[in-house]
């Protein structure tokens, strides 16, 4: 340790292997998408390397903390780092929310001929603006010969009458509840109530899995019964990209919380005054929840 207060770690092999794993993953993905047979192999080899490095990395960070190497100042660095990481995720979602807003508020009306721009009646005769977009410009102009087709049905608000049989509603209930339980878990660990912590965190993880299960159900329903796919014009595009990225983040968050739960149950990690590993995961979870609330209104209720 370097004399003073701040722990500057020794040399480490983690970063270069993490870079290599990351590179192999994306290089494999690109090859895969371009139809090279080596693609999937490279992709999975890279993904495994990357996961293994991250596993090691976190173990080392945890053992350093247990060994008392982390000063309060260093811990603050982790807190700041996590906060700004979440902000970067906010901006990633902002790009997709922004795209949806632009499409609905500007692009579609213009495509339908509104505004003082070019009259699109020449390009897409008969196209009318609607949301959810069931009839794409291609369908309006080319009828049966259209390549870009809209969905057969959409995921819209069923009215208050149908609320309780509406899956997105239950998804919202599940996620909001999980935000509360993870908060209780946090209070429990601060009060040194290990049992309560394990229960509440366990319930949160369970709710995460339930959400993912329901989301998968919804996708199956959309693909098989509604004719709503990723390729269903801009409605399908925005619907699946927004909910899909959210779902991917829920998956990440659930894994993070599950690891925290296992650490607590199996190893007795986390102390009333030292539990940032868990707290970071819980921040992430709250963030994922907030995104969902946005999605619930923008994609479902007013979708």
């Amino acid at each position, binding site marked *: 340790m370097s004399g003073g207060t701040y722990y500057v770690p020794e040399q480490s092999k983690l*970063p*270069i292997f993490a870079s290599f794993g990351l590179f192999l993953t994306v290089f494999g993905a690109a090859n895969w998408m371009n139809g090279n047979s080596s693609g999937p192999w490279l992709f999975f080899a890279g993904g495994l390397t990357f996961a293994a490095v991250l596993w090691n990395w976190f173990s080392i960070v945890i053992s350093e903390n247990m060994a008392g190497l982390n000063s309060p100042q260093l811990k603050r660095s982790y807190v*700041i780092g996590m906060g700004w990481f979440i902000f970067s995720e906010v*901006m990633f979602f902002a790009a997709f929310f922004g795209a949806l807003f*632009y*499409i609905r508020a500007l692009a579609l009306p213009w495509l339908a001929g509104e505004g003082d721009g070019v009259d699109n009646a020449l390009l897409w005769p008969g196209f009318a603006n609607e949301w959810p977009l069931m009839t794409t410009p291609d369908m309006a102009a080319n009828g049966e010969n*259209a390549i*870009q087709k809209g969905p057969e049905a959409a995921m819209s608000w069923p009215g208050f009458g149908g609320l309780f049989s509406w899956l997105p509603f239950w998804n919202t209930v599940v996620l909001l509840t999980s935000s509360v339980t993870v908060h209780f878990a946090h209070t429990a660990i601060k009060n040194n109530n290990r049992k309560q912590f394990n229960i509440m965190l366990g319930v949160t993880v369970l709710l995460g899995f339930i959400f993912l299960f329901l989301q998968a159900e919804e996708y199956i329903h959309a693909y098989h019964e509604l004719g709503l796919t990723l390729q269903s*014009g801009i409605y399908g595009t925005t619907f699946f990209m927004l909910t899909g990225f959210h779902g991917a983040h829920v998956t990440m968050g659930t894994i993070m919380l599950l690891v925290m739960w296992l650490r607590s149950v199996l190893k007795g990690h986390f102390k009333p005054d030292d539990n940032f590993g868990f707290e970071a995961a819980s921040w992430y979870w709250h963030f994922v929840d907030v995104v969902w609330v946005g999605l619930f209104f923008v994609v479902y209720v007013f979708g």
Partner: protein
Amino acid sequence: MAHGPAKGITRWLYTTNHKDIGSMYLWFSFAMFFLGGIFALVIRAELFQPGLQIVEPNFFNQMTTMHGLVMVFGAVMPAFVGLANWMIPMQIGAPDMALPRMNNWSFWILPFAFAMLSSTLFMDGGAPNFGWTFYAPLSTTYAPPSVTFFIFAIHIMGASSIMGAINIIATIVNMRAPGMTYMKMPLFVWTWLITAFLLIAVMPVLAGVVTMMLMDIHFGTSFFDAAGGGDPVLFQHVFWFFGHPEVYIMILPAFGIVSAIIPTFARKPLFGYASMVYATAAIAFLSFVVWAHHMFTVGLPIAGELFFMWATMLIAVPTGVKVFNWVATMFKGAMTFETPMLFSIAFVILFTIGGFSGLMLAIAPADFQYHDTYFVVAHFHYVLVPGAIFSITAGVYYWLPKWCGNMYNETMGKLHFWLAFIGLNVTFFPMHFSGLAGMPRRIPDYNMMFADWNMISSVGAFLFGAAQVLFLYNVIATIIGGKKATDEVWENPEGLEWTVPSPAPYHTFETPPEYK
């Protein structure tokens, strides 16, 4: 902890030391600068005369694309991160960056990302050929297959930038020496703090837009396809929401460097420190609301044209404050003109020219004439070459003696400056004229009437390129040997970095200094 660096190659592969990582960033950037420079010289060689002489049009397009991408993401950004790594801990009295392992991860992603990007040159269908702004549908429906590799390269270099920026914010917020309040921080630290914020805010948006492309290309979505209800113009909005803050990411740290150098050689404290801080923040804020000035000709509603025109012009106000302060710092100073100062003065003058052409472009009705002509090329090269590149060069000359303990060769430094200064003006000034006369950008062949200006530009470009070889030689010669530098290096320079020995020991400020 062992007190010297480790031996052999593993020193660099496994390091957690901010100085090692800073050096690697700087060398990587230098290498990319030459690679991007070679691409530029291919372009200028082809444009030396009208007609097609040297390369195929498609290859020409690959050159303009790769030149822009390599220079922006490979040369300028990593150079500033390298300077941040070296200087921020030393300027705030910290032992290292806040998260040293993540720091090395941020760096090592880059060689992989650029190896992947460069490998596209050898792929079937060639490298990306749709311009560094990769507008859809050129970059989606009509793109070569290598676009997928380009997309993933952008993804991972974006991850690298975000991690680098998080590290810089954590360092500045958390690791300042006792007594160094925010309003006592050197301006280089301030400008980097704000730049890091911009990076975290917009790199994810860039990731978003390339993800949309990827989905359109491989998974049948219709973000940028009007047939499915999408819109190619959506691409431009998302891209420029990233793109305009990005140009400030490439200039704010430059402001910081110049604000460090000018006071040293004018032997006066910086004029208007507080206003410099506020101006930087104002520029950063405004940079989020001007993006559509790149899109005046795509068919925005009139209200949009007006809003983005006026918002863009507003940026000239804080920018003007900065230029005023630099000039006022020099006013009645006891000036000497060592190489870093020469580059900094050229920065102030030539960056201002770039700002003025920017103002001309900001006038929406006038931009209909200038857009996509060489006038735009002249504008952004005036802000980027004597702006970003000159400030980096100035910073390297200014701090190199502190890094390696030796003085660089002043005569050669001055020669480098004058060759670069003349070369760049000969290259880019005529582009204003060819642009105003209507020469479109990104074409391998052109009308006879533009022949003279193009020939001059090409001559200037090769001169500028040659000057940089001199720079490389000077830097290497300084690292190997040369006159020993004193600890202060310059006469009474401001800042904690000058209180440590030259060369700076491997670990500095292991116990934080008291800053008054």
